[in-house]
């Protein structure tokens, strides 16, 4: 399978690897996420759940440590995801305490399916599907 390639988004001298994924809630919706290899889980803002027609509190609650060392509650759901031409199920968390300006795409169910290559020189993120044996 050829790699999926995403150009970084650039603001002045700062470039950020934000990419669109589609998620199935009450239909298919497109959500933009910051790809964060240091994040264990993908976590979206609560407003995205409202848009997708998902009751976040029906998910499994898990406390997660964030960058300032504090713990926030995250509600984990299994959702169908489309990334490029691939469709699969992934664990997606939602939180009303996510204090940063991005949704986060973390490792679980994504980094064990694709090899993520962050090419900061060319400002490009490429995803290559892993051939599982």
């Amino acid at each position, binding site marked *: 399978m050829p790699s999926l390639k995403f150009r970084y988004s650039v*603001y002045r001298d700062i470039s950020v690897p*934000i990419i669109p994924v589609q998620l199935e809630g009450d239909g298919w919706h497109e959500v*933009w996420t910051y790809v964060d290899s240091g994040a264990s889980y993908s976590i979206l803002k609560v*407003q995205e759940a409202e*848009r997708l027609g998902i009751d976040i509190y029906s998910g499994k609650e898990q406390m997660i440590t964030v960058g300032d060392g504090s713990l926030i509650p995250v509600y984990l759901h299994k959702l169908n995801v489309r990334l490029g031409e691939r469709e699969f199920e992934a664990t997606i968390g939602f939180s009303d305490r996510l204090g940063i*300006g991005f949704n*986060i795409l973390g490792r679980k169910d994504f980094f064990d399916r694709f090899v993520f290559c962050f090419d900061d020189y060319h400002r490009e993120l490429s995803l290559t599907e892993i051939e599982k044996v």
Partner: protein
Amino acid sequence: MEVKSQEWITKNFEMLVDEYPSKYIAVVNDKVVSVGTSAKDVEEKARKEYPTKIPSVILIPKKEDLACLL
């Protein structure tokens, strides 16, 4: 997926951060079709205008959000 909308967002990201910080926007093809503070409202408005499309909805970060330690 709507590649045209995605490419347009990436190419115009600097303008979007300057024009729409902390706002949700919906993009269809190469056009911002709705803007607001409610993600749901922004998407619903875009879908009314383009019922056959999945709009590309994105929360535009503030410039301070871009240099972050996640």
